[in-house]
């Protein structure tokens, strides 16, 4: 398995990232009010444009591959759609923002284009999801709100491939599937495992993990017939609505906060554990197949670890800092920075990402056949991973608990 491509974008956190269709540009927000568009030049990413219009922190970005439009959501309760148009004065191509009337009174938390790119969904702290569609008569984006029966902040959404159904994860510990059917935009969808008649705001399913926890990430499988969600109790649940079966995989590490399907029988999840983990399975059961990261050794050359610890089975505790303190405790070895420590590598984790991964997205390959995924996180890194065949990973199955 080849090594992941690692790009250090920033010292601080990356709020979210979205690539354009040909992967030559990426839109990121560095925990600020602005979106930066980075263009690839060799092995570097350079800022070529800054999209400034929001007046509070940006929470989420999505880039529609075919219509080449960017949508951003922010804590200022607004969303903007950005479109490339020639500047009337200079003739240069610029990204022009269009305000979206969201009608929410709390922060917008998450945004995603629908598969046909004629709608997008904005999750919010106002216990509502705004489904936005373009109104050509007035030349603006209008929204309809999905409200019932959401009881708390919506943290994440994902579109079904049919452009009508929407999955949402919320801080009231529920993952739900809604109909976001808009009469003027959508054709009547064919019936599916989620239901036959689907007027706006139909609840097609409501699921929760046995031990609760905020639902941080949801995702439909490529066919749309299976739903996966990750919650703050360190579990991934996979729902077969026709089954009816829910498989809950307990992780023995910290919670996952983001996930993406790579094939009909495989998904990648990542989060506070700082490494992307591949899960595989089908209607008869699911399991963790292994980490995409090689956590057996520190990543930087200067980070030689002290000779004792070895890989601790306890997830994120697998760090040089932890080993230093454990050695001090169990062997009476000197203070941090003492004789056998690795100097600057003292606090280095053995994972590529040095902090929580907040976003994992498909990078290469179409739906159902994703070969590479990209991740970004609190450590300011953008990493592109190969999703290798399962066989190569099973051998590396490292302290990932299976149920």
């Amino acid at each position: 398995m080849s090594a992941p491509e690692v790009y250090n974008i920033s010292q601080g956190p990356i709020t979210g990232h979205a690539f354009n269709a040909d992967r030559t540009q990426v839109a990121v927000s560095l925990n600020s009010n602005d979106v930066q568009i980075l263009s690839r030049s060799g092995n570097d990413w350079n800022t070529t444009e800054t999209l400034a219009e929001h007046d509070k922190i940006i929470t989420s970005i999505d880039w529609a591959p075919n219509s080449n439009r960017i949508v951003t959501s922010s804590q200022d309760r607004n969303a903007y759609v950005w479109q490339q148009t020639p500047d009337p004065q200079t003739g240069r191509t610029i990204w022009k923002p269009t305000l979206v009337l969201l009608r929410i009174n709390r922060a917008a938390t998450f945004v995603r284009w629908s598969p046909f790119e004629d709608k997008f969904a904005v999750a919010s702290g106002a216990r509502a999801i705004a489904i936005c569609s373009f109104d050509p008569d007035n030349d603006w984006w209008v929204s309809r709100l999905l409200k019932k029966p959401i009881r708390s902040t919506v943290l994440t959404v994902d579109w079904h491939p049919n452009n009508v159904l929407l999955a949402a994860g919320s801080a009231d510990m529920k993952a739900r599937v809604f109909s976001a059917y808009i009469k003027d935009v959508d054709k009547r969808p064919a019936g599916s495992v989620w239901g036959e008649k689907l007027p706006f705001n139909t609840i097609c399913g409501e699921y929760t993990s046995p031990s609760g926890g905020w639902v941080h990430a949801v995702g439909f499988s490529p066919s749309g017939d299976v739903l996966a969600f990750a919650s703050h109790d360190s579990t991934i649940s996979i729902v077969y609505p026709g089954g009816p079966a829910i498989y809950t995989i307990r992780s023995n590490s910290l919670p996952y906060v983001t996930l993406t399907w790579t094939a009909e029988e495989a998904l990648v999840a990542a989060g506070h554990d700082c490494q992307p983990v591949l899960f595989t399975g089908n209607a008869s059961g699911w399991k963790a197949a292994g980490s995409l990261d090689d956590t057996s050794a520190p990543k930087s050359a200067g980070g030689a670890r002290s000779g004792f610890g070895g890989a601790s089975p306890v997830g994120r505790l697998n760090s040089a800092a932890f080993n230093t303190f454990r050695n001090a405790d169990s062997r009476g070895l000197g203070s941090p920075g003492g004789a056998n420590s690795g100097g600057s590598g003292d606090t280095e984790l053995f994972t590529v990402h040095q902090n929580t991964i907040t976003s994992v997205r498909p990078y290469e390959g179409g739906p159902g056949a994703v070969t590479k995924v990209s991740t970004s996180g609190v450590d300011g890194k953008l990493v592109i991973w190969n999703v290798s065949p399962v066989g190569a990973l099973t051998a590396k199955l490292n302290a990932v608990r299976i149920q």
Partner: protein
Amino acid sequence: MEVNFRKIDIDAYDEDVLLETELYDADPRAPSQVIEETKAKAVAVRSSLNKGDITGALVTILDNPPYGPGVDEAKNLTLQTLVTVLNSTKSSDIPNVVKSLPLESQDILMKYLYKGMAMPGWGDVSGSVLLGWHEKLTEVAGTGSIVRAMTDRRLV
């Protein structure tokens, strides 16, 4: 300056407030049934202990524990019974006992360890015994089990 308004419970005036009980599925059993079951389990645990079957005793007491409001008596009896099991286990046996528990029981045991640590001096609760179990359980079940003990609203 008048600051008493800060003490007003504004949630009481919010018709749409999210209640604790809406965050988990209520126990389908009636409180009287729960206490009956708990008493029966306490008896079963004693007979397991007499046979030296620690794992069996733990699985019994950790199966379907009482949670939610109105079952305090059953909760206390469960904790008391569990603490008896924990205290009577030799520390060298703990790793194997923990490993042989089903995943569900491991998570519930973690919940009781934290509950016990929050009640120092209650009954026979001993902090050092609980910490010993906690260490071994974390080695087997990982930090994920601790996270689940914190997120689960089905308080035991």
